[in-house]
Structure formats: structure tokens, C-alpha cells
């Protein structure tokens, strides 16, 4: 298996700065008397400006990885660095600040606050950070880039799924994060709308320089990314770039589609 992993290090070209770096990441859960190893010694570097998809069978540790990268849970061993900043041994408040300033989250079921308008939802992270005034300008730009200018006064319930996910994406971007962490962002969308949202991610990465880590089990979704890594039993077991000819066959090999 290991031999299938193609080394991706590009020698001689300057190494782009890492947005996100996981070193020796391990996480165990105790369930009853049993210990379940969710992640074991995982190494992952996400360079700035990359669109990374994480694939793997159910129970392979994708969610656990996202929790740890999102600073929502603490690892048993190893570390996560965001834009070169170590996060181990930070207080809950410090982690919260990092999440607020450096990370953006996009969820499978959008998770907009139902009694706030789209606009208020988008501004929420900026307001939490006490930067509402500055964020207003960003909001205008984001809204037009994501095509939701007309929807800003609506409540989430008055928006379609695709529109809700665009609002959620705007909310994730309002504080100009280092990385956007997306958990099955198209899981609750029909395939056409899902494609549109994924296209937005792709364009943002290429044109605006976003960095995205997206968990998905949908090979078509994963192909929107620049790079795909495969998880199994808490370890990275392979990866591929999507611009190569072998991308589809690699996915087939690991996911069995």
C-alpha cells in the first residue's frame, strides 16, 4: 500500500508557506472498556492556497481530524500549527480566539442561526471579534462574489439550501481566515447546487487565494479540490493531485467506486 503513495515534494521550487500543519496527530476514544484509535500519528501539511479534500471510509477518522484541525478538540499526542503558530497547551479562550480569527467553518447542514438575517449571520464572527465596522466592507465584497446581495435581509428559512450554504461560506470568510474547514459542504444539497457551491470554493482558492480543507465521501466533489488525501484506520494511506491523469484511478483504488 505504502508504495502506492506518490511523493509530492517538488524539489528546487521554493516551499510555499504552510497554512495548516499536523504533526504526529493521535486521538483515542475510550468507549466502555475499549479504546478506539481514531487517529494515529497522522502527518499532514496544507500549503497556503491549496484546496484539499479528505476522503476515507466511514469510521476512518475524517471527523476526528477535522475536530483537531479546527481546534474543537484536543489531541492525545502530536500538534496542530496554524500559519506556523503552535496551538498545543493553549487555554480554551486562546483557542477560541484562534478559531475566530484564523479559521472558517462550513457545515453540512449550514448551521445558520435561524432568527438572524443572512447579513447578521455573516457578520456574527466579526461582531464576536468586535470588528463589525470593518467587516461591513468585506461583507459587500463577499456578497457580490457569492451572488447573495439580494438575499441579505432574508432569514435562513427564506433561503434555498444553496443560498444558505453561500451565506455560511460568507460567514466563514468574514474574518479573512487562514483556512476554511468544510465538513461535507454539499451533503445536504442536490447535485446541481452542490456543483455550484464547489465551483465557488474552487474559484475562491484560485482567484482569492483561500485555503480549504474539505471532508467528503463524494468523488465528484473531491475532484474539485487540488489534492486529495485518503484516510483509513486513522492514518493517511495515500494521496493524489487532481490535475494528473491517474487521479480517478487513485480515487477508485482507495474508495472503491
Amino acid at each position, binding site marked *: 500500500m505504502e508504495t502506492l503513495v506518490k511523493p509530492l515534494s517538488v524539489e528546487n521550487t521554493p516551499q510555499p508557506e504552510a497554512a495548516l500543519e499536523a504533526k504526529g496527530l493521535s486521538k483515542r476514544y475510550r468507549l466502555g472498556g475499549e479504546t478506539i484509535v481514531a487517529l494515529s500519528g497522522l502527518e499532514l501539511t496544507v500549503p497556503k492556497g491549496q484546496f484539499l479534500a479528505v476522503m476515507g471510509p466511514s469510521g476512518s477518522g475524517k471527523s476526528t481530524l477535522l*475536530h483537531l484541525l479546527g481546534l*474543537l478538540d484536543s489531541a492525545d499526542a502530536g500538534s496542530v500549527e496554524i500559519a506556523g503558530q503552535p496551538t498545543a497547551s493553549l487555554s480554551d479562550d486562546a483557542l477560541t480566539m484562534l478559531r475566530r480569527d484564523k479559521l472558517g467553518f462550513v457545515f453540512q*447542514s449550514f448551521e445558520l442561526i435561524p432568527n438572524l438575517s443572512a447579513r447578521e449571520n455573516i457578520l456574527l*464572527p466579526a461582531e*464576536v*471579534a468586535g470588528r463589525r465596522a470593518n467587516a461591513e466592507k468585506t461583507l459587500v465584497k463577499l456578497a457580490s462574489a457569492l451572488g447573495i446581495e439580494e438575499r441579505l435581509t432574508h432569514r435562513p428559512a427564506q433561503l434555498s439550501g444553496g443560498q444558505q450554504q453561500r451565506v455560511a461560506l460568507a460567514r466563514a470568510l468574514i474574518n479573512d481566515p487562514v483556512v476554511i474547514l468544510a465538513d461535507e459542504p454539499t451533503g445536504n444539497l442536490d447535485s446541481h447546487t452542490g456543483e455550484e457551491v464547489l465551483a465557488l470554493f474552487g474559484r475562491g482558492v484560485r482567484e482569492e487565494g483561500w485555503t480549504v480543507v474539505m471532508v467528503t465521501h463524494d468523488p465528484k466533489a473531491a475532484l474539485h479540490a487540488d489534492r486529495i488525501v485518503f484516510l483509513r484506520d486513522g492514518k493517511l494511506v495515500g494521496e493524489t493531485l487532481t490535475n494528473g491523469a491517474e487521479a480517478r484511478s487513485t480515487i477508485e483504488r482507495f474508495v472503491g467506486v
Partner: protein
Amino acid sequence: MATGVVDTLQSGLQILAATLIAMGGFMAYNTFAASVLERQREFALLRTVCLTRRQVQRLALLEAFLVSLLGIVLGLLLGVGLSAAITYFNAVSLGFEFRTLVVPLRSVVLASLVGVAVSLLAGYLPARSASKTHPLAASRAVSDPSPRGAPRLGWLLLAAGVAASVAPWRGLTALFGAALAMGLLFAGFSLSTPALLKPTLRVLTPILERVFGLAGRLGSSFSLRNATRNGVAVGAVVVGMGLTIGVGAMVAGINAAIRSWVDTTIVGDLFVTAPVSFPGGFAAEVAARVPEVAEVSGVGLRIVRFIPEDTPTGRSVALILVDPERFNPASGFGRFQFIPEQGDANDAYRALSAGGQVLAANTMRDRYGVSTGDTVTLRTGDGYADFGVGGVVVDFTGGGETFVGSLRDAERFGGGTPDLFVMTVAPGADPTAARDALVGAFPELYLDVTLNQNYRARILELTQQTFTTTNGLLVLAIFIASLGVANTLGMNLSSRQHEVAVLRTLGLTQRGVRRVVTAEGIVVLVLGTLLGVLTGLLLSQVITTGASALTGYRITPVYPWRLIVIALVASPLVGLLASLVPARRAARLSPVIALGGE
């Protein structure tokens, strides 16, 4: 005499026990309504597995019934237990032997049944809304489906509650009226609160935002999200607050009545008793031996059998035998407090001087219809005899079941010398010096002399101490209501865990989350207290009427404005306290939940 006062207060405590029981019923409803909302999803699931609408409805109502039943039983036990404990506590702390507690069982059961019936009626709404849950709701996230038509029914119940609290209830039916009004107002406010929340938030949100920042605004808008459930919590606060104000007005009313009675009738400078019988001619001896004393007037205390018209077996009542000259309007120092159009000082003096006549305490008039000019049957040394009624006066002695007669008739009631002497001191003389002179003049009698101010103070102190217990009970009522709010906030939280976690991923700190929950608690308590004060003012009349009927005294409510102001000012603080535990729980929620983790 003080025993009478305490007996009265005893009756007041019984009313409180009854109201607490009613509150138990409300709490049962609270829990029930919240649990139906809580399990909206579960009900929806039941619908998907093919339970019919009617079956779901029956399931919900059955649960309501069982919970309410449990509420009544627990509430009854709590009420009786509490009253017993208070009786015991008072007996110990006041060093006073109480009559054993008599719970007015019928009225209490009636009151709690009415309360619960009204609550069940309101409980029907959530049950119906549960049954209307669309099967699809199981797969959807349910926030807060407010039952359709609820506000309109709420206004209707409110109107009925207001009508019930201002209706001219008479006698013991007022107790029923109080329970009915309370139940209706509770249900009405619970259902109409969602509509009231919006205007309240318009005022509160800017304040909360100023104090708590964004978290304040979020919490205040969250309170609208769970408007139905919060409505029930507001209702609980309304009942707690309403009871406190209403009962407070009643208690202050009793207090005022006793004070005025004490001020008017406890006149005289020295109150003299002795461990042995007073010798005949004691009054004359005092006049001869103690120049500091100007007037001496004996009082005899008897328990006699009184035969009311409709109770052939009769009742034991207090008979106070006084010296008519003490109540001579021209020369005596004694005073009566007359019930309007039931005689005056001249009539009373004439009646007492003539002998063979009595004055009736107002309780005798309220309970047995004894009025001026009637004749009443009392047992004397030579069998039953009729006495004319020369007037009706306020008297708190003997639980209010009292006649005042003349010492001239003492022989007919077992004879003997007076049990108590009331004396005034000569102009310019010092009461304390007079007391010492008196005790020194009769060493063989071991006289026990109480000065007027001490005598009054003792009666008022007894009253005061009992009121302290009452206040304790009221604090308990507010505490129970706050627990209800805490409970509701906790339930709001369980249905919002996910959202709280999302806020945490967006960068809201633990402290921010705590503030969101606290802001919501403050909204509920401030609105509840506001409405509760209104309810209390509405209820005080009917509660006081009920108390009057139970105790037999004429009490007019005295509005406890200070208490009201304190309650309003303190309500945000209580909201803060009530949200302490749920806020901590919320802050501890792992943000992992946001991503579907457990």
C-alpha cells in the same frame, strides 16, 4: 389575648399552604408542557411509525394527567408538611403552644383541583400541537412550533382571569375564586407571553446589548426562539410573583388590622396578672395603697359554650368580662373599635352597665350572623340563657370567636375575681415607678406587671415573627419559580446544544455563551416579574377576601409597594441566579457537537 392573634396568623399560613399546593399543580403543568415541546421530534417519530393523530393526542394527555396527579399528591404532601413544620417551628421559636394545625381540607383540595383543571385545559394545547406534528418534522430540525391559535386563547384566558380576580366573591368561595383566577392568569400569561415577548424585547435588547454585548443581543433573540416554552417559565414566575404580592398584600392587611386594633384597644398603662387568685376588693386596695395608680379595671377571661342558630351542639368561644366603667365614654379610658352601623360607645356602655348583654366580635357576625339587637344563647352557671347583643366590635382575642360581657355578670359565669387588671397611672406619674410601687405594695401576690408599651410590643412582635415565617414561604415560592426558569433554560439548551456549539466554532468564548444564556434568563424573569406584579395587584383583593373568610376578620389589602419595587429591581439578579447552572452547562458544551460529534 395574643393567642388570638397567633391563631389568626395560623389561618393565614393555611391559606399559604393552599396556595403552595396550587403552585405544585402549575409546576406540574410547566413540566408537562415543556416536555411535550421537548419531544416534538419524538412525537413526530411516533407519527411516522403510524400512530394516528388521535393516538398521539391521547398519549400526550394521559401523560399530562399522570404528571398533574403526581403534582397534586406531591404538592399536598409538601403543603401539609410545610405547614406542620412551620407550626412546629413557631411553637419552638415563639415558645407558644399552637392549636394543632387544621388544614381546611375541602377548600384546599378544591383549590388545587381547580388550579390543575385549568392547567390541564391549557395543557391540551401543546397536546394538540403535538398531535399535529407533521411526520416529516422528525427529519427536520424543530425549533419552536407555537401552537396555532394559542395567543387568542391566551388573551381569552387572561380576560377570564382578570374577571375572576375582580369578581365580587363572597366568603369561602373567594378561596375558590383565588385559585380559579390564579390558574386562568397563569395559563393566559403562559399562552400570550410569546406575543408579549416582542415588545418587551424591544425595550430589553438594547439594555442587554449594552451590558453583555453581542451575547446579550443573541440571548435576547434566543428567548424569542423558544417563546412557547419560555412562556410557561414566565407563567411560573407570574404565579410565584403574583402569589408573593397577593399574599403579601393580605398579610400586610392583617398586620395593619392588628396594629389598628392594638392601637385603639390596648389602652391603659399597666397590665397586671398574678399566679394566685386576686383577693376580693383588690381594686380598692390598690387605690388605697398605691397613689401612683389612678384607675383600676378588672378583666375576667372565660371559655363559654355558645349555641349558634344552625349549630345545636354549640361552640366554645372566649368571653371577656370587663368593667363597664372602663368603657364609660365620659370618664373611662377603655375604647372599642366598632363595625360600622353596629353600635357605638354609648350603646356599648349602656349595654355593659345594664348587664345581661354582650358585645360580639366581628368574627361572630361574619361566621354566625350575630348583629346588634340580636339575642345569643350562652351557657351560664344555671343553664343556657339568652343575652342581648349591644354592638359588634373588632376583637382578635380567641381566634376572633369572642363575646365581651360585663363583670357584673361574672357570677353567672363561675364567679371569682378578675383574672387581669388594667390600670392607668395618675397624671404626671411614671409608669415604671407605678409598677414598682404596685409590686412592692402586694408582695404576697407575686404580681406580674407589664407596661403598655411592652404589652403592645409583645403582641406585635408575635405577629411580626409569624410574618417572618410567611415571608420565608413567599421567598420559597419565588425560589420554586426560579427553579422552574432554570429548568426551562436547561431545556432550551438541550434543544440548542448544536447551535451553541456552532457559536463556539465561530469564536464565541465560554463566557460569551454563559452570557447568552444569562440574557435569556433575565428576559424571562424581568417579564415574569412585571406581569407577576400586575397579577399580584389583581389577585390581592380576592386572596384577601379568601383570607377574611378563613380567619373571620375584615381585612383590606395593603399593597406592599416596597416589596414590589424590590422585586422589580432584583428581578434581573434573580434571572442571573436562575441561569447560573444552565449557563455553566452551556459554556461547558464541547464545540465538537457543531460538526455532528457527540
